[in-house]
């Protein structure tokens, strides 16, 4: 896939993806809108401006890999993959229903174009590092992108993986922390504080880039800068807003894992018009 989209076009895709997210979760009557909306620009920038991939040839061995380690944000991935042409857009509203390819969490058995089945937090970074190590052995240009939740990185396995990535100098991977500061039980700082987060990743030997995770040009620049880093893995700490784009969901822990009502959907879609 060649990327030649303007900023306006990328922002328009982001808006359509947001509308799809709230629609599909409302129709499903369950799901995770907040953490899907916070990651929209990250995924749109990756799929439409950064990653080397081909929806017509999803098993292309030299493609870049994408892992949504925070698998509960599946709706954003499905909506973006539909925009890219991997999966049918007209069936997105079958999310979470029996027989749907749009499972509650991403499932390779239903969507073979996925690079990983995820949903149990803390595992995507190890998996992505394994893929990156395989690409290095194969002298493949593949780069690996792993989106992590902020709450997710409370899992110990993330830090085992962080040590592995730096020790083995795996520099074809970028971990993106969707730092929306809210997890299921409330604000991250009240559940298990992560700060000083950049210093943690740095001390584990990662090159750290902090940025506004909703600023597409900033994301473009960060991914380009990440590709230039040699001998070290890169962590992007993307400061985001949980529920971004829908006023009553923004920074509201209630919408971590709750579907909007039909009336709320109407308001949301007006705001996202």
């Amino acid at each position, binding site marked *: 896939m060649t990327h030649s989209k303007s900023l306006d076009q990328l922002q328009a895709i982001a808006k359509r993806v947001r509308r799809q997210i709230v629609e599909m979760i409302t129709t499903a009557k369950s799901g995770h809108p907040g953490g899907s909306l916070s990651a929209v620009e990250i995924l749109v920038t990756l799929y439409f401006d950064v990653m080397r991939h081909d929806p017509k040839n999803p098993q292309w061995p030299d493609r870049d890999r994408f892992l949504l380690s925070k698998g509960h944000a599946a709706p954003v991935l499905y909506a973006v993959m539909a925009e890219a042409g991997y999966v049918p857009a007209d069936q997105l509203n079958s999310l979470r229903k029996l027989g749907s390819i749009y499972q509650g969490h991403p499932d390779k058995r239903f969507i073979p174009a996925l690079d990983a089945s995820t949903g149990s937090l803390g595992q995507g970074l190890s*998996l992505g590092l394994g893929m990156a190590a395989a690409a290095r052995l194969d002298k493949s240009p593949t780069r690996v992108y792993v989106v992590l939740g902020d709450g997710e990185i409370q899992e110990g396995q993330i830090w085992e993986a962080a040590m592995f990535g730096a*020790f083995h100098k795996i520099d074809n991977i970028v971990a993106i922390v969707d730092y929306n500061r809210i997890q299921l039980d409330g604000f991250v700082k009240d559940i298990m504080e992560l700060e000083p987060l950049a210093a943690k990743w740095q001390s584990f030997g990662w090159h750290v880039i902090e940025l506004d995770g909703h600023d597409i040009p900033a994301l473009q620049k960060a991914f380009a800068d990440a590709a230039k880093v040699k001998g070290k893995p890169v962590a992007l700490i993307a400061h985001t807003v949980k529920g971004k784009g829908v006023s009553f969901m923004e920074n509201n822990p209630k919408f971590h894992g709750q579907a909007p009502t039909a009336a709320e959907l109407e308001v949301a879609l007006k705001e996202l018009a």
Partner: protein
Amino acid sequence: MPAGMKFELKTGVATREAFGKTLVELARENPDIVVCDADLSKSTMTHWFAAEFPDRFFSCGIAEADMVGIGAGLASSGKIAFVASFSCFVLNKGFEQLRVTAAYPNVNLKVVGTHSGISIGEDGPSQMSIEDTSLACSLPGFVVFSPADEVSMRALVRAAVQHVGPVFIRAGRPKVPIIYSPGQQFEMGKGITLIEGRDVTLMATGLMVSESIKAQEILENEGISARVIDIHTIKPLDASLISKAASETGAIVVSEEHLVDGGLGVRVAQVVAQTNPCVMEFVGLTDYAESGSPEDLLRKYGLVAPNIAQMARKAIARKKKNKS
């Protein structure tokens, strides 16, 4: 082998050593083989691979959960990835990762757990893997190998590489008797009848195969004809061989160096119940053991030929009582 012929049971190398050597041989033929280890390569015997193929060896540190994920990632990208550690660590600390990143997406990951059972001896229960068969068999899609000697280990490591999909191989620490001659053929999922017999079947896996052979000798001297079967593949289980043994001998003793709950015995019992119900007895562990020499431990916990023979007598007595 017909009854009456004696197995020599000369001591050979440990199954972990046979694994380590075979891995290197296979890696010379197949550049896709990669190995991850968690600071136990000198014990799991992957250090030979590490020395010859340093680029394809990934030291993961003492981090089994991450190691399984790394291996699954390598396997997801086309590698034949081995992850090795003590069986109790890779299965227990890596179980959730085996579930989500290996079994669920059916990834081509090969998991090798060494130092299984209580025959590791002096290190004691925290290092003794007595739940691994149960855990590995519970994972959909996993093949579970439990070789009894160096010959079967060598063949089954090859079978694991040829099979596309997740595999668990159970290996032991001590040197073990050689049961098979070098040319023996092994087929995944097919048990091997080592000795024919009519009165009772001694079914075993791993270290308990040689003990079952010794038990057969004890029984033969008493005029009891015991069949001995090696179940080297615990999953998928050889249902036809098991149901045949059930119908032809009417009594089965299953022996394993593992907890009776959830091990080979209950899996065999499931097949027996579904095909030809017969009398069954179980030799295995019911609780955590303790430190001691392997020989002392195996004797104390009943994982030896005299106890297997005793269970066989008990099974035969029950069979006769049921008939009368």
